[in-house]
């Protein structure tokens, strides 16, 4: 025993270097088992123990199990397993106990590996409220637990708090493997994505539940399902081989499979990686991510996106249209916010309220002034709570030209659904034109009034003139009437006394007042002759006057020329008889004449009378014949004294006979031929004379058989 004690003591006086080495080793240890192993070995090497085991409680299994050991085989220390709920077990007690405990009877402790020998248990870790990490068991026990053992326990405790303790390694390897396997498999199975481990050709080696559903079909399923599964396998293999060939993106591709239960299409993303296992060879791990919904969602998103873009496009277009619209409005439009700041304006507004870069001081000043005026107008609307619109006139100026721009402004509040003010829209209407127009209108009105005045004056003048003309016409008419009246009166006044003269002369000559002496008879005859002459004169004067006054209306009558000639010769018969001349009538085939009979008669009477007057002896021939289709030629030819050529025009003039002296040997007034000429003219005919002094005269009257008005 002494030798053992000395040995122990020698071992106890362990060197600092050995402690340092242990600490370094513990630092380097990757896990708890290794650390515990090192600690146990150090104890055996330096603290005089022959065997050392580290046991840790496995709360999962509920047992205290051996983790590491020195001086014992792993098999031996792994056999250690003491249920933790065996509260009476001395080692369990030792776990909770604070100090180290020595056990004298190994049998009691049920530690077959230690044999019969006693051992010490030193708590590792734990302190205060923390549970112990484990127990260090040393055999043979070291009395009074030298500091080194304690020290090692502390060091190990510190190390173990740093490094996790492994799950109890005291179970059976196979059990553990199986447990691990099952756990792994349940994890893989739980995945909702089909997971496959296949060979390079795609034949499944391991498949999770979801993959099984897709790629395997039990025997008792429908034909359709079997076929679906077949298809799926085909697609999958194809996809894998594509991957193997390196097509498409590395490791990612789409795979369209059929749902064997529902028959619907499923779209998967295939993520596969090659896996090399030294024992199994090369295989492929594939994960199929169901992207059907993803694909649908993507499509939906794309559609929505497209719709959104379209809507955006529309909105943009609409906005552009609106902008264009607003800009195309000739009137400035300004939108101001609730604070009165301009938030939007169209081009015409910009011209008034902004200046181009580099504009002069004047332009900027004008813009500021415009802004001020505008702002004060808008604030006028803002200040009244209840008014919605405001209309007024603002005096602005064009910044580029300096021209005055009087505008009429109409501002309106824009209200939201709940009646809140969102903005104010103002439209400015250039009143320049309106003002000009008003001025122009005024001018026009003035001019028009003036014109009207002038027109009225002119009309009045015209009316005056008309009145004057009317009066003149009236006067003329009256004058004409007076003339007619005069003629009538004259006719009457002259004839009345003449009638008396002629009457009395004739009566007395007839012997009504008694027998007459020859001289008395002769004198009365002279009175009678002169009175007749006077009467002829008066008649002719009246005729001429009437013709000149246009008071000889033409009366168209149908008559026979031969009858008329006969009438004339009959009427002048007394004179013819007295003259002792022969009157020969030669009338050809003359159609019925349609002209003024009375005037034709007068012409013939005159011509015949003249012929009778100026023919001392011989005859007078009256001829009448048709000339052409519509003209009649009447000739009165006599064998009288004739008319010298020089006088042939003269005799047609008023009061002219060849001999103008008062003593007219042949009687006549000198008016007869003049009247004839006038009358023939009225009947649209001609009067011609052929004469030779001493050989007689032939007067030719040509008349249209039908007088056309």
């Amino acid at each position, binding site marked *: 025993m002494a030798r053992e004690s000395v040995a122990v003591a020698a071992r106890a006086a362990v060197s600092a270097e050995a402690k340092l080495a242990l600490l370094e080793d513990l630092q380097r240890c990757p896990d708890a088992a290794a650390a515990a192993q090192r600690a146990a070995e150090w104890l055996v090497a330096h603290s005089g123990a022959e065997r050392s085991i580290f046991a840790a409680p496995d709360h999962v299994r509920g047992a205290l199990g051996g983790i590491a050991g020195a001086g014992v085989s792993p098999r031996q220390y792994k056999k250690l397993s003491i249920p933790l709920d065996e509260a009476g077990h001395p080692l369990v007690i030792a776990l909770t106990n604070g100090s180290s405990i020595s056990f004298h009877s190994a049998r009691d402790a049920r530690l077959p590996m230690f044999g019969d020998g006693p051992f010490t248990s030193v708590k590792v870790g734990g302190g205060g409220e923390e549970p112990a990490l484990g127990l260090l068991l040393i055999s043979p026990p070291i009395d009074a637990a030298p500091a080194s053992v304690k020290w090692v326990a502390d060091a190990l405790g510190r190390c173990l708090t740093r490094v996790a303790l492994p799950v109890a390694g005291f179970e059976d390897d196979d059990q553990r493997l199986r447990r691990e396997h099952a756990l792994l498999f349940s994890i893989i199975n739980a995945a909702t994505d089909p997971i496959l481990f296949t060979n390079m050709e795609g034949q499944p080696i391991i498949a999770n539940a979801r993959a099984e559903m897709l790629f395997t079909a039990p025997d008792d399923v429908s034909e359709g399902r079997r076929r679906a599964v077949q298809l799926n396998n085909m697609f999958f293999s194809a996809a894998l081989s594509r991957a193997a060939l390196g097509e498409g993106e590395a490791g990612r591709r789409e795979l369209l499979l059929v749902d064997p239960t529902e028959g619907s299409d499923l779209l998967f993303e295939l993520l596969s990686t090659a896996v090399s296992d030294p024992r199994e060879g090369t295989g492929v791990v594939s994960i199929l991510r169901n992207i059907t919904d993803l694909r649908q969602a993507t499509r939906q998103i794309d559609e929505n996106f497209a719709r959104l873009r379209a809507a955006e496009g529309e909105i943009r277009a609409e906005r552009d249209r609106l902008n264009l619209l607003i800009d195309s409005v000739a009137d400035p439009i300004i939108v101001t916010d609730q604070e009165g700041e301009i938030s939007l304006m169209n081009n015409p507004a910009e011209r008034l309220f902004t200046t181009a870069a580099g504009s002069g001081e004047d332009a900027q000043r004008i813009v500021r002034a415009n802004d001020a005026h505008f702002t004060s107008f808008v604030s006028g609307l803002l200040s009244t709570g209840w008014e919605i619109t405001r209309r007024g006139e603002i005096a602005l100026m064009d910044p580029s030209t300096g021209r005055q721009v009087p505008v009429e402004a109409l501002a309106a509040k824009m209200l939201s659904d709940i009646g809140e003010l969102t903005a104010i829209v103002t439209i400015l209407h250039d009143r320049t034109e309106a003002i000009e127009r008003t001025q122009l209108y005024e001018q026009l009105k003035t001019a028009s009034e003036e014109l009207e005045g002038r027109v009225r004056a002119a009309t009045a003048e015209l009316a005056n003139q008309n009145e004057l003309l009317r009066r003149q016409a009236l006067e003329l008419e009256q004058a004409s009437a007076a003339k007619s009246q005069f003629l*009538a009166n004259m*006719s*009457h*006044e*002259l*004839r*009345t*006394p*003449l*009638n*008396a003269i*002629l*009457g*009395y002369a*004739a*009566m007395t000559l*007839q012997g*009504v*007042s008694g027998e007459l002496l020859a001289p008395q008879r002769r004198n009365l005859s002279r009175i009678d002759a002169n009175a007749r002459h006077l*009467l002829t004169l008066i*008649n002719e004067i*009246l005729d001429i006057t009437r013709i000149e006054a246009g*008071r000889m209306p033409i009366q168209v009558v149908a008559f026979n020329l031969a009858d008329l000639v006969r009438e004339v010769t009959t009427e002048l018969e007394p004179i013819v008889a007295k003259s002792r001349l022969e009157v020969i009538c030669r009338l050809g085939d003359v159609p019925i004449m349609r002209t003024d009979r009375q005037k034709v008669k007068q012409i013939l009477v005159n011509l015949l009378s003249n012929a009778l007057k100026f023919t001392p002896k011989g005859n007078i021939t009256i001829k009448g014949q048709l000339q052409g289709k519509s003209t009649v030629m009447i000739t009165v030819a006599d064998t009288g004294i004739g008319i010298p050529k020089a006088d042939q025009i003269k005799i047609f003039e008023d009061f002219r006979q060849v001999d103008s002296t008062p003593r007219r040997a042949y009687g006549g007034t000198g008016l007869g031929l003049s009247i004839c000429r006038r009358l023939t003219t009225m009947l649209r005919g001609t009067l011609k004379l052929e004469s030779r002094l001493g050989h007689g005269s032939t007067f030719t009257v040509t008349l249209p058989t039908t007088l056309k008005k």
Partner: protein
Amino acid sequence: MVTKNKNEPLVLVVDDFADAREMYGEYLKFCGFRVAEAQNGVEAIDKAKRLKPDLILMDLSMPVVDGWEATRRLKADSTTRDIPVVALTGHAMAGHSESAKSAGCDLVITKPCLPHDLIKEIKKVIGAGAQAAAKKRTSA
């Protein structure tokens, strides 16, 4: 209307011009007519009503009531309607004779008219008047 003396018809001569009136009167008497004279239209109507002449020789242009008017009145009056009226006018215009005819004159003569010719016309008219009167008498 009955003539007082078949052989001596009564002629009422109406003219404001004395020379003419007396001239016609003298000649008529020379030719065997009885003559009454009136100086104007009023007198003419009055005398016509009273004396009931066989013919009225009426100068148309007279003052106060002229020949036209007198003729119209005489012709309007039933008692004097049937007395023939021979009008004398110095107006040479056609209108005058027509208006005289429309006033009711049975004959219009334009002055100057020689007494000899006038008597011829008068006799014609009286003769026609007497025939008409005779017809009336037989029918009455």
